[in-house]
């Protein structure tokens, strides 16, 4: 079964079509959700909820449209909804990373491609707030436009721009000094 057939069967309410779409897109969806939600189980919850929403809304899906961009928005929306609810109680993610911080003596300009720098970048990403990580994920991991991100997260484009700016500044500061 190819994607077009899977979409057709899914729209008709055929579980086989749904199963095919789940198995094709669940990995990618989980990775997006995991970047927004630090708890893997919550990431799974978000993706499951997105698939359930997709099933409920399948009749409104245009049969000729590609599935992923449409579904990706549901995933990001569900993950962000959960992240906002957890945000009030989650351990502060914006503080300095507790262990394994970068060596301030090294010059990051020397070797961005080095594995060590990549590790630092991963640590820096973990230290961002959920909102900052969400906009970075959608912008750079999913190549979404700022307008699409704003629509997905339910906020103004200006808000997206601001958080992108903040996130990028913090990444740069972290990579330069190991602290913000």
């Amino acid at each position, binding site marked *: 079964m190819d994607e077009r057939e899977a979409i057709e069967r899914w729209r008709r309410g055929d*579980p086989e079509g*749904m*199963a095919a779409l*789940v*198995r094709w897109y*669940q*990995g990618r969806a*989980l*990775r*997006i959700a*995991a*970047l927004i939600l*630090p*708890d*893997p*189980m919550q*990431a*799974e919850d978000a*993706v*499951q909820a997105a*698939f*359930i929403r997709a*099933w409920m809304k399948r009749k409104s899906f245009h049969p000729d449209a590609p599935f992923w961009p449409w579904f990706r928005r549901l995933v990001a929306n569900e993950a962000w909804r959960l992240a906002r*609810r*957890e945000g*009030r*109680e*989650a*351990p502060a993610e914006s503080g300095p990373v507790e262990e394994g911080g970068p060596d301030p003596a090294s010059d990051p300009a020397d070797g*961005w*491609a080095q594995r060590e*720098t*990549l590790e630092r*970048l*991963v640590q820096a*990403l*973990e230290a961002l707030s959920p909102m900052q990580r969400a906009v*970075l*994920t959608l912008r*750079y*991991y999913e190549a979404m436009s700022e307008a699409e991100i704003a629509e997905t997260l339910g906020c103004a484009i200006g808000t997206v721009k601001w958080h992108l*700016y903040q996130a*990028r*500044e913090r*990444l*740069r500061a972290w*990579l330069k000094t190991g602290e913000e």
Partner: protein
Amino acid sequence: MSGFPCTPEEEQQLQEALDRLARMRIPEERDLWPALQAQLFTPHRRGWRWVVQRNWAWMAAGLLLALALIGMTVAPRLWEAFFLTQPLERDRKLRILSLTQTRGGVTVTIERAYADANRILISYRVRGLPESPAAHWIPVLTLEDTSGRPIPSLIGEGLVGASEVLGLSLPPGGLAGVVGFDPWALPGWPIHRPESLSLRLHVVFQAIPYPAPTPGIRWTQIHPESGPVREGSVPVTPHPAEGPTPAAGWRFTFDLTVPVEPEAAGYGPRTEVAHGLELTLEQWVWAPSGARARVCFIPPDPQLSWTMHEELMLEAQDEVSPSAPSSEIAGGEALTITTPILQSPPRQQGEQVCLDRFFAAPQLKRARPVVFQVLELVGWSPATLKPVRRWQGPWVFQIP
């Protein structure tokens, strides 16, 4: 140059780092289809909830009111649906841990933890348990401090499958629950409490045969030491021999650090006399998880097993949540009366018998002046489990 990334190379590095972070958080391939299929395309098998008590017995009112509470609960979020964690989750007092281990295909995540003067709560989720036509798997959690001192469990609450009552559904092979432990077993407690507790939690699994397929059923285990079984309690003994045998690898150990909620208020000891019998309120401790009373007396007949009837009267201006897991019987306009949800088995202290009562009234904003009164003591025959002697009170304690 401002911000990162600025160049196409940096963008590529950021994409790579994001991908690495995502794969670190979701390290293995997951197949969500079975869970989705169960939720979307199969009629919900009746889910069931259980309540496990060890060394404690439910009072009938507590059980019935807890059931009423569950009936009222529509919160979609898991930890707001369980009555043990509901108010604390709502007030954002539960510490998020998210400690995950996988062994033998079974994943256990310790999701939340909480400690205050009266209770330690651990919430967990499990996935990947094999389906069995005859039994559910239920985790047995044991807790100890860093010196290996056991901290007894008080009560457990859990969910398997789908609960229409709660509006919650867990995927096949998944379950979730909360266990409450008794910090009063720790030395110096509740007077001397550290800022945080370092604990070791062990998780093993036990097979429990399916109960009758009744929606929203609660399963209550009464420990033999818990004294007379009260009307309304449902003693169910697990029969591990009838169920499948847990895999040897299904043993999990977690080391946790849990901050201790500092908010607490204490009172006692105070002695009152009724009809010639002295009764001492040894300790009254209020904390966000609820209030707890320890009452001691020299029993009129030491051959009998003694329990008591008691109630807690709260000033009416106290804000009581409509979902409070306690009875709210209007005593005129002046008072609200609650009954305890937990009672301990009698504890022998020399000649004295001591009884603990736990009032789950965390919805009260603060311990306003309350009246705790023991209405009567009841002596039960150990042989017949019937009451054979009653000593009328009341013993009335005004708690400032």
